[in-house]
C-alpha cells in the first residue's frame, strides 16, 4: 500500500516537474522544477529497491547538479534577467522556425514509438519487486566494484580527473 503511494507521489513529481521545466519561462524556476523532477526520480529508484542509487541521486543530482545549474544561471546575469526571461521561442536563434518544429515532432514520435516497442517486449518484470527483505544494495554494489567491475571503478577516477582539470581550465582567466 505504501509502495503504491510512494510510486504515485514520485511519478507525479517526475511528470509535473519535467512538464514545468519545459513550460516555465524563468530559468531559475526551471531549475527548481528540475529539482522536483530529480527528487521524484529518487523516489522511483526507492520503489525499485535500489536504495543506494536513490540516495546517490539525492546527493549528486539534487544536491550538486541543481546547485551547479543555478550557479551557471547566475553567470548569465544581465540581459536574460533584465528582460525577466520573457523570451518566447522566437528570441532564441535557431528555435521557433518550421524546421525545428518538424524535427521536434519527428524525434518525439520516434522516442514514443521506441519506448512503446520496448515496453511491449517487457510484458513482465516492470512491476516493482514485492519480494522479502530489501537486501543491502550497498554491500552488493561494493562487492561488484572491487571484484568484477574493478576496471570501470578505477577508470571512473580518470574520468573525474579529466572533469576536474577541465573545470579548472575553463575558469582560468584568459592570458594576454
Amino acid at each position, binding site marked *: 500500500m505504501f509502495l503504491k503511494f510512494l510510486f504515485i507521489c514520485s511519478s507525479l513529481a517526475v511528470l509535473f516537474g519535467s512538464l514545468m521545466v519545459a513550460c516555465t519561462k524563468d530559468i531559475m524556476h526551471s531549475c527548481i522544477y528540475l529539482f522536483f523532477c530529480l527528487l521524484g526520480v529518487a523516489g522511483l529508484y526507492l520503489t525499485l529497491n535500489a536504495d543506494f542509487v536513490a540516495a546517490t541521486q539525492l546527493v549528486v543530482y539534487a544536491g550538486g547538479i541543481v546547485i*551547479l545549474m543555478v550557479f551557471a544561471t547566475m553567470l548569465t546575469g544581465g540581459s536574460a534577467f533584465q528582460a525577466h526571461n520573457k523570451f518566447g521561442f522566437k528570441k532564441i536563434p535557431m528555435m521557433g522556425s518550421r524546421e525545428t518544429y518538424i524535427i521536434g515532432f519527428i524525434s518525439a514520435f520516434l522516442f514514443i514509438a521506441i519506448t512503446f516497442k520496448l515496453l511491449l517486449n517487457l510484458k513482465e518484470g516492470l512491476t516493482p519487486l514485492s519480494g*522479502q527483505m*530489501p537486501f543491502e544494495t550497498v554491500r552488493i554494489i*561494493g562487492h561488484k566494484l572491487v571484484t568484477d567491475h574493478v576496471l570501470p571503478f578505477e577508470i571512473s577516477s580518470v574520468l573525474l580527473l579529466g572533469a*576536474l582539470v577541465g573545470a579548472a581550465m575553463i575558469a582560468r582567466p584568459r592570458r594576454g
Partner: protein
Amino acid sequence: MSQNFDVYIPVVLLMGFAIIIIIGALIVGRFIRPHHPTELKQTAYECGELPVGSAWSFFNVRFYVVGLIFIIFDVESALMFPVVTVFKELNSIGKGGIVLVEILIFLAVLVSGVAYCWRKGDLDWVKSFQNTVGNKIKK
C-alpha cells in the same frame, strides 16, 4: 504490499510534517497578523537605503568552479561509499590488501588532479588575475 517498504514511511511523514507546519503557520498567521502594505514597506530593505537597480546581475565565475569541484568530489564519495563499506568484510577474509590498493589508486588519481589545480593556483579564491599579472611582471 510488502512489509519492507514500510521503513520509508517516516521519511515521507517527516517531509509532510515540515510542509504542513509552514503552510499551517502561514494560514493561522493570516488571521491574527496585521496587513497594511505601503509603497515604502514593499521595497526591498537592503540596508535601509532605497534599492538601486536589480540584484540579479553577473556573478563571479569562481562560485561555478567551486560547484564543479564539489560535484567531482561528490561523485567520488558516492563511488567510495560502497567500496569502503565492504572493506572490513573483505579484510576479515584476507582480501583487504587488494581493496586497499584499489582505494589507493582511485584516490591517487584524484589527488593528482587536486594537486595540479593547487599548483596552478585554481584553488585560490582571490585569484588569478593578480597572479598572472604578477607573474608577467616577474618575467
